[in-house]
Every structure is written in C-alpha cells, then in structure tokens.
C-alpha cells in the first residue's frame, strides 16, 4: 500500500460521511414521501442539500471505483468504514446529538475491525498481469496453484 492508495481510502471515507449527512439533512427538509406520490422523490434532488450530497457521493463513487481497481471488495469495504465513526462525530459536534456509551462502543468495534483488515493483504487472487506484482502477498495457508 502506497500513500496515494491510503489517500483514496480516506477519500471514500470522507465523501461518504459528508454526502450521507447532507442527504439526510435534505430529506428531513423534503419530508415524508408516500408511495402513492412516489414521483416526488425525483424532485427531491432539487433540494440544495440533497444536490450537494449527490455531488459528494459522486466523489465517493469515483474514489470507490478507483480503490476497487487495485483491491478486493472484502478489503475496501471494512477499510473505508471509518466513515461511520466520522458520521457519529459529525452527529455529536455539528448536529449536537448525544453520543451514548453504546455508540462509543460501536465506534471502538468498527475502528478495531478496520485496523484488523488493513494489516492484511489488499488483493488476494490472481492478478499476476500487472507489473512488479504490487502487494498481493499470499495470506497464511493459501494453496499455490500449479
């Protein structure tokens, strides 16, 4: 893993957390949409918060696709899940919600899960085509194919 790649993972985290917060903020303004008026969900994207949220989620999508081009799905997802921790911190410091002990425990659990998976290899299968191999070190106990 190079510094650039960690930056991409950080980008996923930041864009997802801020995008989701804005989306939620905007949908609170739009209000409840009933299934019989489902078309109003299309106009929900005209709300400024929702629109900005979508823009940020576009940034998320680009960094996400980039990460998936060099790492496993089961690596990228946990590795970028620090966004939920960020979301809780945004809730505490910007939306002034009370963060309970259970939530702090959840934050600790997510953080250790992230630390856990980023210790391992990013890519686990085939991919011998790209030059110099990258960091696809074989995990312990993997059978080498003839």
């Amino acid at each position, binding site marked *: 893993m190079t510094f*650039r790649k960690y930056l991409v993972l950080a980008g996923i985290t930041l864009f997802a957390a801020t995008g989701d917060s804005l989306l939620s903020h905007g949908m609170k303004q739009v209000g409840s*949409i009933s299934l019989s008026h489902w078309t109003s969900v299309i106009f929900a994207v005209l709300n400024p918060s929702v629109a900005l949220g979508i823009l940020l989620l576009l940034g998320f999508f680009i960094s996400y*696709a*980039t990460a998936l081009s060099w790492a*496993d799905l089961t690596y990228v997802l*946990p590795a970028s*899940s620090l966004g939920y921790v960020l979301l809780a911190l945004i809730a505490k410091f910007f939306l002034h919600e009370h963060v309970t002990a259970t939530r702090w425990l959840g934050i600790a659990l997510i953080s250790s899960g992230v630390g856990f998976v980023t210790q391992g290899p990013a890519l686990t299968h085939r991919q011998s085509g790209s030059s110099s191999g990258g960091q696809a070190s074989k995990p312990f106990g993997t059978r080498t194919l003839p």
Partner: protein
Amino acid sequence: MKDAYTWGAILVIVLASSTGDVLLSRAMKQIGDVGKYSRRAGLLAVVGRVVRNPFFLFGLVTMALAFYSLLFALSWADVSLVGPASASLTFVANAIAGKIFLHEQVDHRRWMAALMVAGGVALLAG
C-alpha cells in the same frame, strides 16, 4: 405500517447495493489499476473504458436502485436507523458475495473484520 415499509426499503438497499458492489468490483478488476493505466494512456481513455464495461453499467443500475430506496427510507425513518441497519447487513452480504462470486480469499481476518464492523455499526443504531 411505516416500519414494514422502512424495513422493506432497507432489504432492497442491502440486496441492490451488494449486487452493485460485486458488479463494480468485477468491472474494475477487469480494467485493472486505474492509476497505472491513466499514467500510461491518459484519464479520458480510462473513463471511456470504464463506462463501456457492461458489468460497470449493470452495477450502476443496481446502485441507482439502492440510492432511490435509500431516499425513500430516509423520508420514512431516521438516518441513525436506516444508515447503520442497511450498512451492517451489507457488510455481511458482501463478505459472502465476495467469497462466492468474486472468489476472494475471505480468511479469518476478513470475516472477523466484517463481523466487527457490522456489529459496531449495529451498536451505533442503539
């Protein structure tokens, strides 16, 4: 009644987004490291190649479906329920899907990570 709608929307989000994740991952693996590729052939070539990949396009459709179900769910319930609930279920669904459809080496470390993150996200909802 609204509860049933919310959980229905969450189920759609989980199924659609994990399908989208698998398809997108498949597409990006076919294309290869976009950083290296764009240094060699330019950014436009990368974008052109990505948007013409059929797995990518299917993935985009399922992700759009997940996105609209998310908007519905957010209009019915709090983000502190919808976000964690759909995310933690998606983590577990993806660990299974990654193993079955993408043949990724989901070792103990990754199972543990997926379960820890899913558990942590569930606790955030509490």
